[in-house]
């Protein structure tokens, strides 16, 4: 069975590859390449997979899941500039794709020992764009 929890965080970022020309950056990233950056209200949905514990009736305590999402994602990223304040995005371009993978890597280690396992990270950059990652 799957269980999903949603949180929001607000961050700024710049999508720009310094090895490419201004023209190429504009073509790839559009207005997201703007040198002074811009921001989003990100919505993160994290889905866990597991068996329902007959003793509790739960796959995983949702409060504990929220705590993990806060510690690993919201606390370090909310109201921050990803490129300047949140490694590895000083070196890795903070596209929605790369941000979803980084969030997966941060969360996955917290569920290594069960009882539920990380199933999907779904990251909405806007209401109209989302990236889903289910691990390598």
């Amino acid at each position: 069975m799957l269980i999903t929890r949603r949180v929001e965080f607000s961050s700024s970022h710049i999508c720009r590859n310094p090895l490419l020309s201004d023209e190429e950056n504009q073509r790839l990233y559009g207005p997201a390449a703007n040198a002074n950056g811009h921001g989003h209200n990100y919505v993160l949905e994290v889905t866990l997979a597991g068996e329902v514990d007959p003793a509790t009736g739960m796959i995983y305590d949702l409060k504990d899941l929220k705590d993990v999402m806060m510690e690993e994602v919201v606390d370090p990223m909310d109201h921050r500039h990803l490129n300047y304040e949140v490694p590895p995005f000083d070196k890795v371009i903070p596209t929605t794709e790369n941000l979803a993978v980084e969030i997966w890597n941060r969360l996955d280690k917290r569920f290594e020992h069960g009882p539920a396992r990380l199933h999907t990270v779904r990251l909405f950059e806007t209401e109209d764009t989302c990236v889903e990652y289910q691990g390598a």
Partner: protein
Amino acid sequence: MTVRITRNYRFVASHRLHLDHLSEEDNQNLFGKCNNPYGHGHNYVVSITIHGPIDERTGLAVAVADLDALVQREVIDRYDHRYLNFDVAEFASVPSTTENIAFAIRDHLQANWRTALGPNAPRLVDIKVQETKRNSVALSLIS
């Protein structure tokens, strides 16, 4: 690292569901108020989902500008602010049910996919068409 990306697009259009070979009564029974004679309209939302690896150089799995341009040209420019029955060739004889709109969008996108997105284009895996907030059709292109 492979991801799925979903992007939403919008168009507004009018249509009437009607099959010429059926009686008026049968059309009413089949399509209900969607058969009303002068047509009606919807704010459609089209969700396009792709699946592909993240390009290490760019951090992107799809060139969003190229996908946007493709959907704009092949879907939005064809359907937006049109009466689908009269203004859009594929719905002259096929009823523009949400199901058939999804199939038509699939055909238009697939016919131009590699030309628009290049040899390393990600896969087009899902098309969802929302007719109203209560009605949507999801077409999966992978088995």
